[in-house]
């Protein structure tokens, strides 16, 4: 599989009145063609900032791309001119957002908002664009699409609006769809429907999807690979199966334990992870999870662990950055070494 997008050593900071917030600190991962990649992490871990960076829609004051590259189609997206990026947005990369009510223009009817992206990138008449938009509305599963075209966002329900957003994002068959918390604001039953819609449309076009969420359940259902972010860094990434059944980072482990499931022991209490993420104004020099980690060691405070490959039976890639996985640790403690 070849990568569609390669993110290399991305560093992004926000220059605020209170100082510099280092929101993304050395993030590197690939998105392969035709795959569904899940990016999980709690609020503030940098997952949305990273996705916005791919689209380059971060407001550049106060955001600053300090370092790194985002390679797509052989070009570094961070180095392209704004007009070039405008040709890519909506056409090669599509994006859907969490709060669909706030993400749709309240004074424009829904259909026109879909037609808008079509007409921006293709030289078609307004009639043709309208027909295409109606077709998209039909594809995302909205009944009576001709009528829906003329309606306004406030006349749609949450689920319908999210479908409309999908229609906008996928209207031009982009190579990459970035879905930033698409189901977080929806009921569980609607969530399911939306994910189905997304999957159906993606399968047809073989696009890649970057699904950002803090909901592990959604990831487990849909993603083949997972990237786990914490405090602006990637702390673990690999095939979904490995992440879920063979997590090698205390944070990932903690996340999995804190989610209720049908199979768990109902007499035991849920284990939350105590504390909260570190302050990104002055991020710690060592492992960012140090202050909340059950297994923390002295070295974890001073030195940030390196990304180590975790060998797996099926040969799929799995890496985590934790000192518990390093060879030195295993050798030094031998029998007493902790295995997550």
């Amino acid at each position, binding site marked *: 599989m070849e990568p569609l997008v390669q993110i290399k050593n991305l560093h992004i900071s926000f220059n605020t009145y209170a100082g510099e917030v280092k929101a993304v600190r050395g993030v590197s991962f690939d998105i392969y063609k035709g795959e569904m990649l899940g990016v999980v992490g709690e609020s503030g871990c940098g997952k949305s900032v990273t996705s916005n960076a791919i*689209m380059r*829609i971060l407001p550049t004051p106060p955001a600053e791309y300090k370092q790194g590259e985002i390679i797509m189609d052989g070009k570094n997206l961070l180095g392209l001119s*704004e007009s070039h*990026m*405008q*040709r*890519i*947005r*909506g*056409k090669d990369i*599509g*994006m859907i*957002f969490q*709060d669909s009510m*706030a*993400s*749709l*223009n*309240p*004074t*424009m*009817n829904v259909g026109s908002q879909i037609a*808008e*992206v079509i007409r*921006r*990138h293709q030289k078609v008449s307004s009639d043709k664009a309208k027909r295409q938009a109606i077709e998209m509305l039909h594809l995302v599963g909205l009944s009576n699409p001709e009528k829906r075209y*003329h309606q*306004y966002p*406030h*006349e*749609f*329900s949450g689920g319908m609006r999210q479908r409309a*957003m999908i229609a*906008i*994002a996928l209207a031009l068959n982009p190579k990459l769809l970035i879905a930033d918390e698409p189901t977080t604001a929806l009921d569980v039953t609607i969530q399911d429907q939306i994910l189905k819609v997304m999957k159906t449309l993606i399968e047809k076009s073989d696009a890649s999807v970057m699904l950002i969420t803090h909901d592990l359940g959604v990831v487990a259902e849909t993603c083949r690979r997972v990237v786990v972010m914490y405090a602006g860094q990637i702390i673990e990434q690999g095939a979904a199966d490995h992440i879920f059944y063979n997590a090698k980072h205390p944070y990932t482990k903690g996340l999995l334990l804190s989610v209720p499931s049908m199979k768990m022991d109902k007499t035991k209490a849920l284990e939350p992870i105590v504390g909260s993420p570190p302050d990104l104004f002055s991020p710690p020099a060592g492992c960012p999870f140090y202050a909340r980690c059950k297994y923390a060691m002295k070295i974890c405070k001073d030195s940030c662990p390196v990304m180590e490959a975790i060998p797996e039976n099926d040969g799929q890639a799995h890496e985590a950055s934790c000192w518990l996985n390093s060879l030195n640790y295993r050798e030094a403690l031998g029998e007493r070494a902790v295995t997550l």
Partner: protein
Amino acid sequence: MLAAALKKEGKNALAKYILKRLGYAILTIWVVVTLTFIIMKVIPGNPFISDKMTKTTLENLMRFYKLDQPLFIQYLEYLKSVVTFNFGPSMVSATLDANFYITRGLPVSMQLGVQALLTALIFGMLLGVVAALNHNRWPDYISIIIAILGVSVPSFIMSRILTSFFSLKLGWFPVSGWASMKSTVLPMIALAVLPMAQITRLTRSSMLEVMGMDYIKTARAKGISRIALILRHGVKNASLPIISSLGTITTNLVTGSIVIERIFAIPGMGESLVKSVGNRDYPVIMAATVVYSIILIALTLAIDLIYPFIDPRIKIVGGETVLAEE
């Protein structure tokens, strides 16, 4: 959007809304008219007091102007004159009608008002949008300064500044009068200053709020050009609060025009009003007051009627406007 609105609520609710608003407007006009009448009768002084007048002449005059009738009859006569829009003869001039002052003055005042309003709207919105897009940089600071100045400098001082600079020093425009297009420029600017300051500030804050909205991000993610983004998504939404404040702004404009007409000796209605007040010329006072009030009430009514059609989120339910929810 009109079609959609009619379809949405059915003609019934719409008609109900229009009638209700209309009825309200008429009621208010009646209140204003009555109040004016009361005020006129309360004002001390009589237009005809003069030592040289004989008693019979005074009686004749009083009878001619119906001032000898009991108050209630005068009130009915007054209402009649308002409804038929015939305010009777002026008390100052034997030959001129009160209506004359209105017909002469109204077009002039309207021209001044409309010119000033357009100036204020165009430049105010332009400045406000530019300021919002350049938040915390120098265009923003300039707009804030202009907005503050506009609000702090009363129109008569501003007029004086404009005249002394552009008329006396540079000689570009005449000092006063309403002779040519040129003479309309300075009064127009002087009158536009306050509304422009208000519109600038309103546009700026509205635009700032809109540009921070999520749908701007969605629009950017579509790859549309910056101009399209600013106009179709930014300004379109930002202008809603401005339209709804148009009522207040025009009210200020009308009252401001009275002063401007005085300063620049413009033969509009404001000028007539002030003069007639000084002369106790009742018919003219009442005529001018009624006309002004009707204009303002009609304007507010028009905005009330137009706004629901511009903002698709407003529904007309049971004769009132409500914010539509799912």
